[in-house]
């Protein structure tokens, strides 16, 4: 750690971990409901559990991204954050919005629009919160001694993510128009600007962990984010095939979303090649695992599994089935959850001064959570494919099909248990590092 204000990041990361545990808990509630154990139905019906599960994901990832920015930007800009106090105010307001939304979902207070369930009144608080965050980051960046490509890409990602929240707040009378612009937020976030954030964090980590020249890494960063937008913006069309808009999206969405895996492939090749090229042997092996893991798993989850159902001919049958859940789980895990866990694993020893670089608990956490998540993805995939055939080819009734595929949810729960053990171990490692301290300040080393 080179600047005292970087310590703020710790509390954003800690908040992330807390929400991750809650997210998993609600995932289990849904998994059990699917195999008939729905004892909580009266208090937490499926739609509540679902809204909490996905929204907690978004908030813990955003909190992780914000923590990452508070850690990375001072180091890249070579100065302290402009205000540590305001950063804490921002964290508290983020927590207030998050907690209020989650509690509200239990009392039918929501918008009922997939992924954007946060009620309108709280939306305005989100805007204030994000503006405060961006203000702090931008002020630090522009007052800083240098503006690196890594910092610019990361900041650009965060800025665009904030701007893209706005189309989701526009009211429409038509369900079709509503859905169309909802994807401007959701798709352009996860298959657009969030990849800038991921790319920025990845580039920072690779510079630190591999020691490869910044100019080389940042050049490829531009190529990757270039590929992301080139395919991802028009790739939004894959959400528009069958929601009641023009057929032109079948062609445009089909072609460009088929190119989307290229950005993730480039990201994976980039990370692995930089690692091979690097001569620096950074002692933080766990951070390296998560960094390379994120680049590779995101290619499989977001790239390949996305491609598996993105062509209109396939999507005609898979649209609105569990096949989507299969892709969603490994994509979010690989691309965004793992990159947040990577930056936490990297930053934690530097902020706390406890160099637990290569613990067996840390390694086990990586393998168990990844194997668990891959198992979950397979379970969702098998259930989804079976659903497609039974329901859409053999024309069986929805609930009959659900009964047929419920066994796959038993497998899902078993794999989710393995995944959860991995995450608990990760958090144990997190806690073992202790609190951040000024004594961890280290101006000399380049770790």
């Amino acid at each position, binding site marked *: 750690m080179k600047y005292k204000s970087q310590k703020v990041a710790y509390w954003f990361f800690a908040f992330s971990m807390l929400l991750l545990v809650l997210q998993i808990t609600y995932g289990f509630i*849904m998994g059990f*409901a*699917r195999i*008939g154990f*729905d004892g909580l*139905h009266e208090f937490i*019906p*499926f*739609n*509540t559990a*679902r809204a909490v599960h996905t929204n907690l994901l978004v908030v813990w990832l955003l909190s992780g991204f914000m923590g990452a920015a508070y850690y990375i930007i001072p180091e890249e800009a070579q100065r302290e954050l402009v205000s540590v106090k305001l950063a804490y105010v921002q964290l508290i307001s983020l927590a207030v919005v998050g907690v209020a939304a989650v509690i509200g979902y239990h009392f*039918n207070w929501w*918008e*009922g*629009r*997939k992924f954007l*369930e946060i009620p309108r009144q709280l939306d305005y608080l989100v805007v204030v919160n994000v503006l405060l965050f961006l203000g702090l980051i931008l002020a630090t960046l522009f007052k800083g001694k240098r503006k690196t490509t890594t910092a610019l890409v990361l900041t650009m990602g965060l800025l665009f993510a904030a701007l893209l929240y706005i189309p989701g707040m526009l009211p429409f*009378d*038509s*369900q*079709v*128009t509503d859905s*169309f612009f909802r994807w401007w937020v959701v798709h352009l976030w996860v298959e657009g600007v969030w990849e800038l954030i991921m790319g920025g964090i990845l580039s920072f980590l690779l510079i630190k962990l591999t020691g490869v020249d910044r100019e080389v890494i*940042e*050049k490829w960063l*531009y*190529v990757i*984010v*270039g590929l992301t*937008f*080139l395919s991802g*913006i*028009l790739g*939004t*069309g894959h959400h*528009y*095939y*069958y*929601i*009641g*808009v*023009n*057929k*032109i*999206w*079948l062609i*445009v969405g089909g072609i*460009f979303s088929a190119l989307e895996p290229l950005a993730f492939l480039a990201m994976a090749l980039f990370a692995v090649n930089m690692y091979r090229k690097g001569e620096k042997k950074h002692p933080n092996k766990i951070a390296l695992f998560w960094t390379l893991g994120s680049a590779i798993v995101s290619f499989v989850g977001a790239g390949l599994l996305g491609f598996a159902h993105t062509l209109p001919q396939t999507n*005609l*049958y898979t*649209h*609105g*089935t*569990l096949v*989507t859940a299969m892709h969603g789980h490994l994509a979010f895990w690989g691309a965004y959850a793992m990159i947040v866990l990577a930056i936490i694993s990297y930053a934690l020893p530097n902020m706390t001064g406890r160099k637990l670089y290569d613990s067996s608990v840390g390694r086990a956490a990586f393998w168990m959570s990844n194997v668990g998540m891959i198992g979950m993805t397979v379970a969702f995939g098998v259930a989804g494919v079976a659903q497609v055939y039974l329901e*859409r080819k053999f*024309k069986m009734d*929805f*609930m009959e099909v*659900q009964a047929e595929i419920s066994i796959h949810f038993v497998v899902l729960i078993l794999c989710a248990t393995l995944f959860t053990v991995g995450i608990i171990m990760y958090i144990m490692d997190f806690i073992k590092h202790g609190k951040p301290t000024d004594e961890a300040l280290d101006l000399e080393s380049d770790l």
Partner: protein
Amino acid sequence: MLSKKQARAFFLGGTVVTFLIFIGLTIFSFSKSQDQTNHEGITEQVVRGKVLWEENNCMGCHTILGEGAYYAPELTKVLDRRGEGYVKAVLMSPIPWNPNGRKMVAYGFTKEEADDLIAFFDWIGGIDLNGFDTVVSPLAKDKIERNKN
């Protein structure tokens, strides 16, 4: 070999060009001549139905236009499949609807509210979904074909 400057130009150029095309296609899709939704048919009742749909997060279990949570049936074309009476009974039920053991929240909607939601489903059912309507609701498709014959 590619320089950093060229890489940046690729990023900025590609982004601007694809974004402009995206905006153009969006405007085209929502031009009146391209409407596939019978937009004029969105009455106040349909809008009230949509509001109820959202206020109760129906998408948190069901899917509509193929979008939702895959826990409960797709509701595009539900009126063709089940008939208005059945759907209304589910909506107004004071105890949890419980087909094959999977519970729905007992919303106990009033008759007016149920009518609003029916109007919403009716409008949804008329949308041209580029072929998805026949796949997503095979029973409805069969019924329509039977009626034709």
